[in-house]
């Protein structure tokens, strides 16, 4: 019995030692070389996914962001310059007096940041869908 216990303890100790050893080995293993990220370039629009209707080569970073190497989101005014006023947009998505209209929300009104739902460089989001089953297409 005592032997058995002693045997078990020694196995445990061995396991522990091996585990520690392994850990030490892992720690000293040099890290894999990491690929250096490509530096930002002036013609960044080429490197970002854009909306289909912005991909005809006519829209550059400067057109929306005002600068060639943007580090901030484009202002709403840049969107409205081509897409029309908030009122125009509300009219465009009007489907009936008692039907939901994303551009004239009973909660948020009609003067929200386009960027709440529409993302230029990634997939857009349906913010209404956070609470409602309603799922309009968000370009």
């Amino acid at each position, binding site marked *: 019995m005592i032997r058995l216990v002693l045997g078990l303890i020694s196995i445990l100790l061995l396991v522990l030692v091996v585990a520690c050893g392994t850990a030490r080995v892992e720690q000293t293993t040099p890290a894999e070389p990491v690929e250096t990220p490509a530096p930002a370039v002036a013609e960044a629009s080429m490197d970002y996914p854009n909306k289909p209707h912005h991909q005809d080569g006519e829209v550059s970073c400067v057109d929306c962001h005002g600068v060639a190497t943007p580090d901030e989101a484009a202002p709403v005014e840049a969107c409205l310059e081509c897409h029309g006023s908030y009122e125009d947009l509300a009219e465009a998505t009007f489907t009936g007096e008692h039907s939901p209209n994303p551009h004239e929300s009973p*909660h*948020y009104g009609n003067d929200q940041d386009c960027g709440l739902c529409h993302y230029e460089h990634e997939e857009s989001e349906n913010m209404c869908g*956070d609470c409602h089953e309603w799922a309009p297409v968000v370009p």
Partner: protein
Amino acid sequence: MSNKPVNQSRRNLIKTGAAGLGALAAGGLVSAMTPGVAKAAKPVPSSWDEEYDVVVVGSGYAALSAAIESHMAGAKTVIIEKMKVAGGNSIINGGLLAAPGTPLQQQEGIKDSPEIYYQDMLKAGLNMNHAPLARIVAENVRDALMWTIDMGVEYKPRLNHLGGHSVPRTYNTTNSSGSGIVRPMLDKVKELGIPIKTKRKMTTMFIDDNGQIQGIEVRDGYRHGKEDSGKLKTIKANRGVVMATGGFSKDEPFRKAQDPRLGAEFNVDSTNQPGATAEAIKETLRIGGNPVHLSWIQLGPWASADEQGFGVGSMFSILAAFPFGFMVDSDTGKRFVNELADRKTRADIMLTRKRPPVVITDENGVKFASTLPQCLERGVVKKYDTLAEVAEANQIPVKELEATMTAYNGYVKNGEDLEFGKRFREGHDQLKAPFYAIRLWPKVHHCMGGVQVDEKARVVNNEGWKPIKGLYAAGEVVGGIHGASRLGSCAIADCLVFGRIAGKSAAASV
């Protein structure tokens, strides 16, 4: 079996060890070990990214009230909101605000007083209310209502009589939404030049050795649901931090731990926006705040079973179906509760039904339903030419349903509900075809529980029972004011009244 105590003591050892190491490593964390002093998680930074007098966390009624009052008292104030849009749950709520002694009550010849209001709150709250706080709401909500009117909020020219209230005293915004109050408040905040920083989530509070809140850490650029998104920033709060972070109705694991009936597996939905989660409450509790009534979570008995969230059906039930109609168990065709009882009474018994109960009203009732067109269009409310059609469509035994309506009409005619003691409103006639019916299933709506505050909206430390210096809380994050059940249209009341108090207290650093 015998492993348990060993594991437990080991865990404690590890915990104590870690805390001890932390305290040794950073001198600023010594307070973590002192009873009665708020517990720091991270040492107070030596320099800050931003500095204000008062930092308000959240952007609903309580937060905006606090920010406006804080600014008016001369404190440089900022509002931070974790979601991408301001307004919290307030901007999607029903816009119902109860107050005593108002101009509309005067106009309609209704006698009311803060005392009756207070007694109504205590009755619904099963006297579990932190009574001095409830009294403050009752005594100050009239002022708060007038304050919103001065800010440009527009209300309908008619009062509503909500369940559990002794008299009609509830104002409703002209657009039947809380946005009717929040948007003018947001305009005011903008006009005053108080910055609102959205997509900023508070991660922790910085506390010095004396237990004084020095500021907070945030994730700037946070995107809801992506917990490691955004950059860490520190914001100094010279005078105080106001927690106005709302309830935890949308925090399924947290709410289910408090009330296991509210797990997603029971098909219980919530009326709240997705940001209504518990992390701010948890942080406040972690540093020494006292939990109050956390398991008292209110369900909305008026919510439609045929749409998501609060939707358009809830207002239909509140304004038309419950006051001017009757509700039956779909299996028996019989009434089973006073349709105007308080929310808890109604929701608890509804949850014990096998199928969604049906509420039936008529042309007279729907005159009061501001959302009727949307309800009909979306199939949330359906119109029927006969009672037999209502029965057939909802698989209700038709004979029983007819007998129920005959009895109900008799009660309406005599002005006395012999079965459930419902108080009939003026203008309630005997029901006649055509009928309008809605199927209901209760949804998680409001958290009565939260952190403990005193009369000045100061968060109380449960070690020593003194206020945590520099920490204030208001709105749904606070527990106790409403006791076991909040009366409908008393939440905005509480948020406005205590939001204003919190803002003033923080600005004055009391």
